[in-house]
């Protein structure tokens, strides 16, 4: 019955070693979001897709990239992780956006950078 699935739940990588986080959804929602959440902080939006249209936040580092090959899947690529990128990464979906739709969050992937 899981609606937004993230894999893996825990990821350990080395400084500078590329890593890919995965998100899939069974809701057939148009919009998928990636957030970064550090300890005791609010989720920070990195980017989102409305269907195939990619929307980057102005302050998202170039080190973070995303792919959405189809409606169900979305990936977060961190090209050269730094120690400051250690965080929980949350994927979320919404039906259509427009400001009134609920966002459904996945369980998150906790990234550790050694």
């Amino acid at each position, binding site marked *: 019955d899981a609606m937004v699935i993230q894999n893996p739940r825990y990821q350990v990588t080395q400084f500078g070693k590329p890593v890919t986080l995965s998100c899939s959804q069974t809701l057939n929602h148009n*919009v998928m*979001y990636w957030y970064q959440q550090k300890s*005791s*902080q*609010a*989720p*920070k*939006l990195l980017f*989102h897709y*409305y269907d195939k249209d990619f*929307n980057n936040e102005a302050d998202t580092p170039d080190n973070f990239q995303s792919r959405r090959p189809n409606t169900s899947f979305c990936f977060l690529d961190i090209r050269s992780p730094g120690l400051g990128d250690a965080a929980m990464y*949350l994927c*979320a979906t*919404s039906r259509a*956006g*427009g*400001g*009134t*739709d*609920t*966002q*459904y*969050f*996945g*369980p*998150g992937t906790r990234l550790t950078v050694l």
Partner: protein
Amino acid sequence: GQQVMQIPQYQHVQEGEDFTTYCNSSTTLSNIQWYKQRPGGHPVFLIQLVKSGEVKKQKRLTFQFGEAKKNSSLHITATQTTDVGTYFCAGIKGGATNKLIFGTGTLLAVQP
């Protein structure tokens, strides 16, 4: 840029006491949503408020949207240990944006 602040940052109550968190935006919001995040968990949608002055209740939780649509509050009556977590408000500025601007969050601890 647009900011959404919440107070207090942290609240520790005895079980059975009431709790309130306040959310304030620097700009007028189209609507506001509230999410709860349990320790180690992910945000879960609680409610959405759209109309100026709107009040909604969910059992022991009462949500209010200010008349100017720049502030909101969440009040929990007679807290229980299951209420533990961080409560985030999240505002939407309006227009065609799909983006939520999350508040800074209030962590609620409930002592049995």
